[in-house]
């Protein structure tokens, strides 16, 4: 039952690098929040500050109202799982898990009971006597998770825990961790640069860039309604087309579509699945470059008349051949100007009708 509050936290490294810049976030009880961003976005630094391994230059952090900003890591109610698992190789699995309990002067019988229970929880029952180095990568990461969980931390911190694992294992562990987190209702902060990890696990996603927040929202909203072109481009595949708006019509090299905003330069964002293609000979707005068949769907790479590359998802990839002319019909678009969202909308019948007059 724990709440984490981060208020106006900044971290400036001695070299002058501003890793985290006046960052604020409130994590609710039992919530799993993902910090998502490219490398260098400050997400790991932020997590390490919550764990106590870095000291904020300014700002405040509290857990359940208690100020922890300057509390050393050994006295924080946080548990961290490292990317490199950081298990102590000179101890076996049991001793790795028991170390923290011993420091807390828990009775040996109680230690044994709790360690065995948590090993059971992560699916490694009976592995206590194994040497850490005998375990596979996935098992090592589970032990690392168990080592944090056995101490029942108020806040669980996960620093790209699956980054060193292969794809299949990553997907399985992701589900397991999510299950365990929900069963224990433990408040969790999770750092990742993998958008699929964030989308599949998080209650809320914090998209970070250059130490600042770009957007904090539910995964589906971050995906469907990205607030900046950066978020739009970072989560999922997104076509970002730079063009100009004149008289309510966005145009770029023969491609045009109505966008009800003031005249000027704009960036249009369309998901590949929101872009409908039709074969066209006369009014072709683009040319098919490559068709990839994924079985469940196909992806068409196409070039606008000025060679701008965009992607469209199609249900029947067999219909398209490289070199063919196509017409584009976006079903949902967003427009940005100066990194700010200025328009979002599905095409209403009324606008669709206007488009037909433009196309004609």
């Amino acid at each position, binding site marked *: 039952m724990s709440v984490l509050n981060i208020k106006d936290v900044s971290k400036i490294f001695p070299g002058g690098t501003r890793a985290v810049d006046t960052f604020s976030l409130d994590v609710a009880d039992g919530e799993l929040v993902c910090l998502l961003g490219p490398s260098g976005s400050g997400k790991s630094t932020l997590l390490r500050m919550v764990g106590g391994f870095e000291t904020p230059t300014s700002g405040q952090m509290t857990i359940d109202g208690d100020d922890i900003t300057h509390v050393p890591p050994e006295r924080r109610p946080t*548990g961290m799982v*490292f990317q490199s698992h*950081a298990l102590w190789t000179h101890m076996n699995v049991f001793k790795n898990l028991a170390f923290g309990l011993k420091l807390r002067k828990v009775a040996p019988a109680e230690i044994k009971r709790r360690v065995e229970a948590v090993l059971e929880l992560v699916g490694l029952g009976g592995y206590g006597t194994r040497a850490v180095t005998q375990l596979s990568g996935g098992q090592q990461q589970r032990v690392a998770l168990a080592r944090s969980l056995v101490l029942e931390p108020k806040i669980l911190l996960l620093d790209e825990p699956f980054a060193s694992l292969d794809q299949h294992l990553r997907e399985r562990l992701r589900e397991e961790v999510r299950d365990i987190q929900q069963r224990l209702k433990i408040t969790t902060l999770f750092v990742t640069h993998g958008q699929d990890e964030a989308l599949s696990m998080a209650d809320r996603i914090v998209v970070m860039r250059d130490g600042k927040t770009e957007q904090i929202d539910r995964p589906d909203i971050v995906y469907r309604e990205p607030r900046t072109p950066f978020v739009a481009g970072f989560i999922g595949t997104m076509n970002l087309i730079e063009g100009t708006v004149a008289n309510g019509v966005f145009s770029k090299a023969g491609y045009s579509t109505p966008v009800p905003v003031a005249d000027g330069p704009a960036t249009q964002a369309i998901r590949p699945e929101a872009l409908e293609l039709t074969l066209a000979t006369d009014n072709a707005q683009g040319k098919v470059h490559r068709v990839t068949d994924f079985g469940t769907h196909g992806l068409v790479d196409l070039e606008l008349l000025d060679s701008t590359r965009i992607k469209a998802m199609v249900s029947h990839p067999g219909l398209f051949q490289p070199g063919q002319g196509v017409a584009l019909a976006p079903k949902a678009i967003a427009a940005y100007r100066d990194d700010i969202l200025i328009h979002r909308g599905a095409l209403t019948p009324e606008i669709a009708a206007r488009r037909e007059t433009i196309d004609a």
Partner: protein
Amino acid sequence: MSTLVRRRTDWTGITFAVVLTLVIVLPLLVVGTWAFTNVWRYPSLIPQEFGLRFWNQTLARADVWSSISMSLTLAVTVTVLSAVICLPAAYAFARMEFPGRSILFFSFLAGHAFPKFGLLVAIAGIFLQLNLIGTFWGVVLIQLVGTLLFMIWIPVAAFQAVDRRMEEAARDVGATPMRVFWSITLPQAGPTIAAAILLSFVGTFYETEGAWLIGAPQVRTLPVLMISFINNQPVIQYGAVLSVLLWVPSFIALMFARKVVNSGSFARGFGG
């Protein structure tokens, strides 16, 4: 299947093995043989008479026994002092930033970069004024200098090789920095540090020039005694018996090393 795979004869390897055997094992064999020889005259290839006569004569001497105990006391004292001084210093070099860090670090190399005897003579001059010549602690001091390189450089490599995340994970589960050092850093670096301690013990035990120049004639270690035996008496067997005696500690040390230190971490200490 594997039985079908023929290993090619590695002639380079065999050449190396033969040359190394000739250079290292043969002299040892000759010295070993001399130690158990009563009579061995030219041109016979093997001694005319084997026996323990010279062992009895050597071991009957009081100066041999006193030099053995002197050597052991010295080696233990120097190793313990060196560990107490060098290990915390090595940790500081490995984990902390301070002004002059790299200059200090490389200064330990200086003691080994110049002709050692020149350095020793200069130090002897200073010790003479300090009344340290011919004293136990004078020899301890001079031998400490010799161990510094091993006892700083190898543990620094060992501490640096310890994963910082392991230490952070220990802090995370509630260990204080001191506890992290004892429970995580030291055990992780342990085998390599044991190798350094072993090297410094054996190195001190066999050290001759410093012990001779600073300690003689009052402080007589086993190697110093051996030199005077060889210089003063034209009987080869005395020197040979003492050589065999001198092998004992290094042999025990090596056996101990094989048990405690696995070869991997031993090599890591040397940057391997």
